[in-house]
């Protein structure tokens, strides 16, 4: 029988990682709450009543969501405290990205003139200048901050997955884009549309990253 090596450092704590279900439920709940407020706002307008200010609903929903997440983190505080600095940076980067993504997504849905459903996230309808500028700033600032944290937190294995995924995503752009452009100039296909190219590149990037990280 092989004995346990006694020369090793202190035993790492085997604390169980908190589930991801609650943050997802809290986030979805906050988005749904914002949707309820949006529906109430529209119903009030249609009924000829004075609607509440449009920012009230999202603000309450955001407060409820952040409150819920704060309770979740408090409940699992010991687990988060036991994380190494690298792991803390990792989860901070993911959390920051999730919060910024949620804010942009929720704001976009509320900003649409019609529909106000999840499908609006992928639509190409007109956006208000306020949202366009705000979301662009959030995207640029959030992505920069998230990436700095993320790249300081990932290990070699994930960095390799990230780099290969980035290269694959780039190839997924440079292969089809000139072909589409050339075919369009010969009037064989519609004009080049950046969104399908962007989404294809993103899809390939994500697929390669997940494959290399989790296979």
């Amino acid at each position, binding site marked *: 029988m092989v004995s346990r090596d006694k020369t090793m*450092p202190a035993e790492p704590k*085997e604390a169980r990682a908190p589930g991801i279900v609650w943050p997802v439920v809290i986030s979805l709940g906050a988005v749904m709450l914002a949707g309820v407020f949006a529906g109430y706002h529209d119903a009030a307008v249609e009924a000829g009543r004075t609607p509440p200010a449009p920012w009230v609903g999202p603000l309450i929903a955001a407060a409820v969501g952040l409150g819920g997440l704060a309770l979740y983190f408090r409940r699992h505080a010991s687990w988060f405290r036991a994380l190494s600095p690298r792991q803390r940076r990792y989860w901070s980067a993911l959390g920051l990205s999730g919060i910024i993504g949620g804010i942009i997504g929720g704001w976009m849905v509320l900003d649409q003139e019609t529909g106000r459903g999840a499908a609006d996230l992928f639509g190409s309808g007109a956006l208000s200048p306020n949202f366009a500028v705000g979301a662009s700033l959030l995207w640029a600032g959030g992505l920069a901050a998230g990436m700095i944290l993320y790249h300081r937190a990932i290990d070699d294995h994930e960095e390799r997955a990230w780099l290969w995924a980035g290269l694959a995503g780039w190839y997924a752009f440079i292969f089809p884009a000139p072909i589409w452009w050339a075919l369009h100039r010969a009037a064989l296909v519609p004009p080049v549309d950046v969104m399908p190219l962007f989404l294809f590149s993103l899809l390939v990037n994500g697929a390669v990253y997940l494959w290399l990280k989790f296979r």
Partner: protein
Amino acid sequence: MTIGWKSRVNNQLKVLRAMRNWSQAELAQRLDVSRQAVNAIETGKYDPSLPLAFKLARLFGMPIEEIFDDGFKGQDDAC
């Protein structure tokens, strides 16, 4: 340069880990890497960087070449 998806370097990580009765998660925690990284090294899907290889060598108290084996047997294999 190894850029492929399968490592050409064999390693003893799984055996060394089993000898100490550590789980992949436990070893990952000691190395401050993800469990997926440990699994990928063990299954030959990923070759660790030199700093991580040194970290492993220090953790197991062995030279790197006793943990990793690239199949090099001597002068005849050089070309």
